[in-house]
């Protein structure tokens, strides 16, 4: 489990990321992704540092971060499982998939299992409509979910 970092630590690691990526065109999103990779989430203390580094206001950075559900405000659990709930997957039975996953994990969307091993989130289209219903586990996409695959996933996140 990623520990929540101390604020000075956050500031210096964030500053290093900004220095590295500042020159990119449209650097804010790449920086936020790197920060999430670095800390496992986007710490609030990183936002003023980013604002200062890119000459933006705190409000602007907050607006962007809060717009994207992918940017987490708290450290992520060991695994993040995202189930696609968009139209194509729904037509291929994602509702049933979701119900089964929730039942097996004992949690609803936006919740984390009591042992902290996995966070379950809905997602609206992974661009994998041809292989509906689909999911993403820790950044890896999985297509054509069926009962077998679901059980495999659940076993993996619990291991």
């Amino acid at each position, binding site marked *: 489990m990623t520990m929540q970092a101390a604020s000075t630590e956050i500031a210096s690691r964030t500053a290093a990321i900004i220095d590295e990526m500042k020159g990119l065109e449209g650097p804010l999103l790449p920086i936020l992704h790197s920060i999430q990779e670095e800390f496992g989430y986007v710490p609030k203390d990183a936002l003023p540092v980013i604002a200062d580094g890119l*000459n933006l206001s*705190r409000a602007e950075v907050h607006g962007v971060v809060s717009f994207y559900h992918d940017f987490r405000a708290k450290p992520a659990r060991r695994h993040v499982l995202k189930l696609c709930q968009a139209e194509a997957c729904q037509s291929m039975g994602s509702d049933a998939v979701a119900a089964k996953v929730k039942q097996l994990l004992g949690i609803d969307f936006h919740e984390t299992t009591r042992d902290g091993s996995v966070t379950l989130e809905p997602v609206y289209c992974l661009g994998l409509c041809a292989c509906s219903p689909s999911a993403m586990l820790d950044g890896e996409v999985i297509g054509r979910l069926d009962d077998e695959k679901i059980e495999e996933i659940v076993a993996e996140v619990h291991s």
Partner: protein
Amino acid sequence: MNIKADFPTLIEEIDYGTPESKATKQVTLTVDGQSITVPEGTSIMRAAMEGGVEIPKLCATDMLDSFGSCRVCLVEIEGRGGTPASCTTPVGEGMVVRTQSERLDAIRRGVMELYVSDHPTGWNEKAGTGASEFDAVAKSVGLVENRYGTEGRNHVKDDGGVAPGHGSLAVDYIARDESNPYFTYDPAQCIVCSRCVRACEEVQGTFALTIEGRGFESRMVAGMHEDFIASECVSCGACVQACPTDALREKTVLEKGMPERSAVTTCAYCGVGCSFKAEVKGDEVIRMMPYKDGKANHGHSCVKGRFAYGYATHKDRILSPMIREKISDPWREVSWEEAIAHTAKEFRRIQYQYGRTAIGGITSSRCTNEETYLVQKLVRQGFRNNNVDTCARVCHSPTGYGLGQTYGTSAGTQDFDSVEYTDVAVIIGANPASAHPVFASRLKKRLRQGAKLIVLDPRRTEMVKSAHVEADYHLPLKPGTNVAVLTALAHVIVTEGLFNEAFIRERCDWAEFQDWASFVALPENSPETVGKLSGVDPEAIRGAARLYAKGGNGAIYYGLGVTEHSQGSTTVMAIANLAMATGNIGRPGVGVNPLRGQNNVQGSCDMGSFPHELPGYRHISGEAVRDIYESLWGVKLDDEPGLRIPNMLDAAVDGSFKGIYIQGEDILQSDPDTKHVAGGLAAMECVVVHDLFLNETANYAHVFLPGSTFLEKDGTFTNAERRINMVRKVLEPKARYADWEATQELARAIGLDWNYTHPSEIMDEIAKTTPSFAGVSFELLDRVGSVQWPCNEKAPLGTPIMHVDGFVRGKGKFIRTEYVATDERTGPRYPLLLTTGRILSQYNVGAQTRRTDNVAWHAEDRLEIHPHDAEVRGVREGDWVRLASRSGETTLRALITDRVSPGVVYTTFHHPDTQANVITTDFSDWATNCPEYKVTAVQVAPSNGPTDWQKDYNEQARQSRRIAPLAAAE
């Protein structure tokens, strides 16, 4: 004559929905059968409004670029499918537009129905004022039902009505934010149209607001979901003005209701001179609304102008004249008649006893042109001497001198609109984001469009780096080295051949240029040499010089960091030289622009407030000029210049100057070397203070005449761009007389035959006697709004840009600017350099702003000190420190920041407790005596609390402010 004495109605400005197009090509279209011709690029919404057809709208307003989010302003266009938004669709030649149809009505009603389903109490009950644009649109689209109810998930109810949030935000309802003293944010009423966010970005340039989240969870928040007061918000109020609902609303409106009538007037704070509608209900100002037709501000304002008018009704205001024998006595309230008669008698006695020149007057840069003119007239015609001076002495007198010498006029060369054409802005010794916020907003807008920026300032100000602002060059020069650095810039321009030879040959004296060029080219003026003494990187000097000379339209804006030095006048000349050498004079986008500190500094200088000048900057020694006034006033004028403020104080200490009439200035707090000022005042026998409050100077006064605020009188102010703006009376003077009337009473009491019945008659006299004002009258100002002097036969509507075809003085004059280090130097005892400035929410000595809720932002003056300097002295954040110079010492709390360089400390002078001017020395500009506020060698040490001087002073102030209780009628 009674011009606009009454104003029965509320001025409603038309909102065209989208900004004006500046295209020259015209396009004709038909809207609802009416043919309308507008510039290309105009939106359909604006075109319709120009034809008098109002299309309902929520997210559009003409201060902001179109956005197209509310879906209320839809129209039908013949030959096109669908119902495009009229705000984002530009007009086309021959286009046929319908703004009304059954389909459109149905869509608009449908959209509004959805809005009200998530709005407090619904459309037909008054959730807020009932007078918002939202309420009006709901009515105009004929909304009669809400089929969706308000029972579902919403942002409104906090007591059981909320369906549990399903997103990352746990709750949908957010409580009201009352943290800002002037306005309320009620998220429940927000419709997420983004007008506030865009106003903060596009108009104000602060970017303090954002839309948080997405979809149903989205809502406006300040900062990172912070209280407004804790966020980056600077409380300019642009968001409140932009909000179409009551989500953002002035507290005064919520408490007292909507205003009933208004008059257009001019802000009495800084030299930007913003136009406002003073909106009144009964006899109370409800709010100040920036006026879109105001040429300086175009509908924008800062926290001071819009909100900080509470001082006008503050309980500290003195409303009755008062007199006392000795300054140790308590004050005695008297009638106006007694106060005026007493003053006249005292002045006459002093002149009889000590001579004609033993009295004088000080005009105010806060009062109107008409009032200032009368005070100098009182001195010249009534006192029969030239002992008149003004507070501009302590701020911009070097501007008058320096620009007068080089160009021939004592004023800035541009209008504020000029900044829209600037490619390279140079800011020297000024922090417009704090002191001239509305101009800063306009400059920032231009910077976001790609203009370059060079800043010369010892501090890393907001203009050097803040959201969406980053100076291309920041030259953090050591205080006191302005001339050296500016001459080094000239060195680069000359030695690298970057000067504009054609311009110089045509407009200036080539031989003088050559002499100047040979001087600046000397090795001692090279960036490498100057870099050592100023602490600025030579490469930065070279880069900045190249950018200014070759970057397109270069405009210089400067403030008191230029003038308040022992070489203030020289610095102004160095600036003038740079603009001439590069040809950056005489067209839009360029020029030399002093940012004036107070509302009427320009005007008070124009009106003959200086001891050597009659109105219009004409020297008192000129016989022809004296003739004009002598024949009109029927007296012989003294042809010798009178005493300047510091000379008056010196003379008082020497015993030859005994009486003074001070209108609207607090010299004890604002002038340098407080102890010397106090000594001078204490030596006088009749000090008359004419002010709103018992200010610090009044502690030494024998007569107090209550002043009137800008809301209580008619007149004019002249802003930094020479613009003469109308000030209109919206309230009756609380203390019976407007200031001009009080001066007139005093003049009559000493035997002058003055019979002005309205300030317009005073302006008529100014126009009659002053060539640059010849065309000015209240009638003209009423008709055209404002004019920039010179306004005369040659320029009947004024002069936005000066020196267009040639310099006023003929040929522009290059003057050598040799750097002479100030005598104020650091040494072992005083190793740090103190420089002073302002912050946004406070104004000048704070007499007004300290008496408003603006203290929420700045409750005390703090000493900014670099972490290194703090550490070696054992000073921690917030510690009390002793600040000592050769002149004196004071204490205040430390603020540790790397905005100041090591070796430099900085403070403001907004609070009398701090008395920063106890520290400043009596060194001053060689030409004009403008004090050297910006450089003082000091030492800083930890301290336990206020110094003895502060304690003694506070006790003395308390004693001298006593007012004897009125004796019961016996």
